[in-house]
């Protein structure tokens, strides 16, 4: 081995059976590499480019997007037509699945540039000969990375359902955000750096979803955190922005303790390997004790809580809105924050068995998710900053995903991740479009009546909001419904669910109600009423509106990708067409994925959820669009709430005459008790706890550690240890005579030291020998 081969020694040691795997699937490393190269290009040459580097970023991400599309198509083909070495026993875990190797047109028609036939050598299938081995369709490509303890560790790509769909989500949103940003941040001082970091982020996120081992995941996990830090603090001249960036990074670091510990436990438990597949298989085959798996799952949950903004560690996410809006759309809504969710999905056996998901009715993951759903939703009510409303909404929706994973509804979680990415990115970009026009994010001060000025933005915002609220038949409806079904609570769909998560179902329904309500409020304050700001707003340019339109199309239609069985066409017994396409292509059916069961969809639950989901918006609609709007028209001002709700209404209530006028006080009940309670004390209390308890704990911890640091430094370091050193006469005493004292008699002190040292040494020597 020479120096030259040291770095590039990458010849695969094992050679697996080759097959008709598309060239692209074996070379997906290209997808993250493109934006990574563009990062370097923009960083070093961006300022000299005519468009300040944006064109390079867009080109790279555009190319990655095309490759992602192609690899999705190739994956579908591979998934359906692959006949691997152990195809025979493929039916084992998939009989719960419902559909199996259908000869459907989607995959069959695909030919990737004629290359799908020629590939050989480098492809390696995850070969699985274990009992009931399934078709192991994941495509794994690895090279040597480094060697430690006599073992070679590898770096590579693991391409399977979840990663391929994430490729699509990340590249799509990233491309749209790139295009959007060319207008939104035009003229910014650090335009070039902005695009450089967008590229780096895209590369890291793509690298994350393709990681074949947990060490690589850690690397990419931290890199996306770094990009988040850099982009939140994009305008670092103002201290609040850099504070927010620091808060994001440090909160995530706290979670990273869990990440490191969890991953280390998995590494040793699985017999000294970082490989995702090896670890998952070890867990599934029961090679790791329940204690170890549980501890690993708990540790990793801490990481998820910080990265994916789960309740108690979510506080950085709203603050992260200090960054540019497209960044919020890309990073803090669609991609980075789902990294935690993706990690659960990736290492699902660890969580599935670590939290004993099947067959129970409550577990840590589901509980955290459900609490986050409700608390996040409540907080969204009291915000005046439109981006913060959306941020709390994101927290709440991430709660849904974690909840879904916690109850065993894996596909539903990923599907919700998929749909949420589109409509939430659309909402953020929409809010950015409005803010771009009015130069503020404050709904109460500077917005109102925007629908007249910005019709396109308004329409897309509406569509995305409806999708978020989960109204039939938009994307959010399907994904949220699947999650609720997956809980198996209250006997709904319980026959095939993994457990009976009653509480989760209730919390999910409450969350659905809240979602619609706060979005109604947000829409009223932004787009209805009269304009309260200054100047004349106008519709944004094409580079902003076109991405909005694209995203709203996805928001409306993406749900069709995973229609429940028995819907539209076909029956539950023989699903074809669009039914469960998403689950079919995305959910791994391999030995490294647990045999989860899939609950049967319930019409009843869909209806109940829809009704629940409409009650919230209805109440909010009534409050804002009727009460407040009317009052605004009366007073001629553009109000944002009823000026004196409780007190005024109590005066009215004092007169019995008003009993009928007030429709049996139902108004009051709704207005002043339910709405006001939800809108006021409850959410305010939650917010207060958020700001004064949770935030305070973080702040206090920070302050205390600085104080402790000061105290330790002052008393122990400068006092005790120094004191011991100086006091022993070895160094000059600090007895207050200052410099003169310090210099006095250095020669003789040195001599004294010499003699003392020699004496001690001699003494030791005598004793020793």
């Amino acid at each position, binding site marked *: *081995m*020479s*120096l030259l081969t*040291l*770095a590039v*020694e990458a010849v695969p040691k094992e050679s697996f059976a080759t097959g008709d795997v598309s060239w692209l699937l074996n070379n997906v490393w290209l997808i993250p590499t493109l934006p990574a190269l563009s990062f370097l290009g923009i960083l070093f040459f961006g300022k000299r480019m005519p468009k300040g580097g944006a064109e390079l970023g867009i080109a790279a991400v555009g190319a990655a997007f095309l490759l992602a599309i192609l690899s999705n198509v190739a994956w579908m083909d591979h998934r359906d037509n692959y006949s691997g070495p152990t195809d025979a026993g493929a039916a084992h875990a998939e009989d719960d699945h419902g559909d199996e190797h259908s000869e459907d047109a989607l995959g069959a028609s695909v030919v990737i540039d004629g290359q799908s036939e020629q590939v050989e050598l480098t492809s390696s299938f995850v070969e699985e000969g274990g009992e009931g081995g399934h078709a192991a369709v994941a495509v794994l490509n690895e090279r*040597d*990375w*480094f*060697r*430690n*303890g*006599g073992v070679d560790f590898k770096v590579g790509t693991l391409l399977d359902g979840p990663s391929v769909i994430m490729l699509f989500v990340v590249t799509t949103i990233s491309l749209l955000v790139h295009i959007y940003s060319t207008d939104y941040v035009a003229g910014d001082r650090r335009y070039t750096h902005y695009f450089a970091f967008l590229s780096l982020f895209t590369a890291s996120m793509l690298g994350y979803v393709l990681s074949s081992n947990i060490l690589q995941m*850690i690397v990419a996990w*931290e*890199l996306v955190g*770094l990009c988040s*830090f850099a982009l939140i*603090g994009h305008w*670092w*001249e103002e*201290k609040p922005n850099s504070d927010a960036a*620091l808060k994001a*990074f*440090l909160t995530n*670091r706290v979670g*990273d*303790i869990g990440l*490191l*510990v969890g991953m*280390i436990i998995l590494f*040793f*438990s699985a*017999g*000294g*390997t970082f490989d995702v597949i*090896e670890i998952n298989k*070890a867990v599934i085959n*029961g*090679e*790791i*004790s329940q*204690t*170890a798996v549980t501890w690993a799952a708990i540790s990793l949950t801490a990481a998820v809580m910080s990265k994916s903004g789960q309740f108690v560690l979510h506080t950085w996410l709203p603050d992260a809105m200090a960054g540019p809006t497209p960044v919020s759309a890309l990073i803090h809504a669609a991609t980075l924050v789902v990294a935690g969710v993706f990690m659960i999905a990736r290492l699902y056996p660890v969580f599935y068995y670590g939290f004993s998901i099947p067959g129970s009715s409550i577990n840590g993951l589901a509980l955290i998710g459900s609490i986050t759903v409700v608390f996040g939703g409540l907080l969204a009510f009291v915000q005046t900053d439109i981006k913060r409303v959306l941020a709390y909404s994101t927290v709440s929706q991430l709660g849904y995903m974690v909840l879904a994973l916690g109850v065993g509804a894996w596909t539903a979680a990923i599907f919700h991740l998929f749909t949420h990415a589109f409509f939430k990115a659309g909402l953020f970009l929409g809010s950015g479009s409005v803010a771009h026009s009015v130069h503020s994010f404050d709904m109460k001060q500077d917005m109102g009546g925007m629908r007249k000025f910005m019709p396109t933005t308004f329409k897309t915002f509406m569509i995305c909001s409806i999708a978020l609220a989960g109204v039939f038949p938009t994307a959010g409806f399907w994904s949220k419904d699947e999650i609720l079904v997956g809980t198996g609570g209250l006997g709904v769909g319980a026959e095939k669910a993994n457990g009976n998560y009653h509480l989760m179902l209730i919390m999910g329904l409450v969350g659905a109600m809240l979602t619609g309500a706060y979005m109604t409020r947000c829409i009223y304050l932004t787009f209805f009423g009269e304009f309260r700001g200054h100047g004349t707003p106008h519709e944004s340019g094409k580079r902003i509106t076109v991405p909005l339109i694209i995203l709203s199309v996805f928001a409306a239609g993406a749900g069709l990708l995973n229609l429940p069985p028995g819907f539209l066409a076909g029956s539950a017994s023989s699903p074809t067409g669009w039914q469960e396409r998403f689950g079919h292509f995305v959910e791994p059916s391999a030995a490294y994925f647990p045999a989860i069961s899939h609950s049967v969809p319930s019409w009843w639950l869909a209806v109940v959820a829809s009704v629940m989901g409409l009650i919230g918006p209805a109440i909010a609609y009534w409050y804002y669009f009727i009460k407040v709007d009317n009052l605004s028209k009366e007073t001629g001002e553009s109000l944002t709430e009823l000026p004196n709700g409780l007190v005024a209404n109590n005066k009215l209530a004092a007169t019995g005459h008003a009993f009928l006028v007030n429709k049996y006080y139902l108004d009051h009940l709704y207005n002043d008790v339910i709405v006001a309670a939800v809108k006021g004390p409850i959410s305010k209390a939650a917010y207060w706890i958020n700001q004064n308890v949770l935030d305070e704990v973080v702040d206090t911890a920070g302050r205390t*550690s*600085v104080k402790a*640091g*000061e105290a*330790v*430094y*002052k008393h122990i*370091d400068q006092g005790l240890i120094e004191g011991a*050193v100086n006091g022993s006469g070895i*160094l000059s005493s600090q007895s207050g005579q200052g410099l003169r004292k310090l210099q006095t008699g250095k020669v003789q002190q040195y001599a004294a030291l010499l003699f003392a*040292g020699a004496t001690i*040494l001699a003494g*030791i*020597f005598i004793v*020793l*020998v």
Partner: protein
Amino acid sequence: MEFFREWGLTAAIFLPLVGVLVMMFIDKKDEAMHKVIALGTSLAIFGIGIVLLFDFDYDRAGEMQWTQQVDWINIIKAEYLIGIDGMSLPLLMLTFLITPLVIIYSWNHFPAPHNPKAFLMLILVLHTGMIGTFVARDLVLFFVFFEVVLLPMFFMIAVWGGEDRKYASLKFFLYTLFGSALMLVSFLALFFLAGGETFSIAGLSDAVAAASEDDFSRNAQLWIFGGMLLGFGIKVPMFPFHTWLPDAHTQAPTQGSVILAAVLLKLGTYGFVRIAIPILPEAAVVWAPWIGLLAVIGIIYGALGCLAQTDMKRLIAFSSVAHMGYVMLGIATLTDWGINAAVFGMVAHGLITGMLFFVAGSIKDRYHTLEIKRLGGLLLQAPRMGWILGFISMASLGLPGLAGFWGEFPAILAAYNPANGLPVGLFRTYMVIAALGTVLAAGYLLWLLQRTAFGTPSEEFIDNPEITDTHREEWLAWTPLLVLILLFGLVPGLIFNVTDPAVEAQISDCLSVDAGSDKANFDVGLCEKEGVEAALANLGVVSTADGE
């Protein structure tokens, strides 16, 4: 080539002295000449390093290569015995690299009171000492080179240092002298107790392994290891022997700080992995929990110290305490993961902290202060330097993908499953504490970055013409370091693949160590693979047969 293999290292050791000799006869005023000679010498040595790098047989990285053996002081059986293996190669190359960069950096920026002749001569003498320490395979030779380093650094701090340079230099000198004296006593005791036959490391290792309990009691081994622990630990520096470090760093000129951080601190940790542990593995097992304890205290304590600092250079100095804590934690595990991590951590810390000191020095050149409160807005006034500061802060806080991570994470990982005979529960506690340290590290470094690089410049520095962006010499000196930080972060195999065989060869001894008396009852198994299996058994894994 054979000739070169035999004499290359010797040439590298003594070339600086030749340079010094030549410089002695050149007039002090002829500054350009001095610079050229010094740079030429160091580059020639670097060239030797490059040749050796290509000639090194990486398949035999576990063995000593380019060895040379010459009789030296027969009467005490000391030999001129040199050679390197995969463990010393990265550190040696780091030394080869840092010195020319420091000279380049100094080119037009010698600290007061100027005098390039003396300054460069001192750097070259230092160079000899540093190279010699990393290649010596004889304890007497090692000690001589170890001490050669001391005086030039003392003068560098005492003459070219800051306000309080006398205090700092003396403290540095005395502290390290004290440590090395203890080390010498340990070496002598080892020599006599092991039969007084040889001072060579390999020979002593064999002799100690072969010695019976009567000849060389376990107790004596513990004492000797304790002496080495103090000697090396002071150099590292380990908590609580670190107090010389912040003073020395703060007062030293930039070049001195860089060399101190990049190479000198490694002499201590290198002593542990090259001398203390291979020769006295049994004693190492007994001391390891204590070393680990001091290491994690150092991690947390260094970080807390950083948070309390108001001076940038002092902050970086304290961060060294924390980072060397990770290195020591890796060493304390006595596993190959841990020691590989330690060697990687040494190189990474050398590159990263060296860079941090470079940048701090450049900031001081421009602002004439390093008080964090007064700084701010570096990214506006000197954007490139601000970016570099951001980059190395990220590297320093252990961001994966940059070199710092590969020193920290494997060390933390190794602590989960330490070598045989070490208390597992205790080391797992260390692991969690060390992981907590990463949060604090992020805290103080980002805080530093926020207050120096972000924001807007304060009144006093706005429109100050002295504050310019990175200049040519700085780019020349920094680029290699920055590139290496990134390269090692992305391709850790560049170092791990080299060190791993060497570490295995060194540490295999500890595999045969009989478990100590404080052995935890759930800890069965040996250092490496067996250790993993022990952990598996501990966690109740049924079978590990198909673990591959």
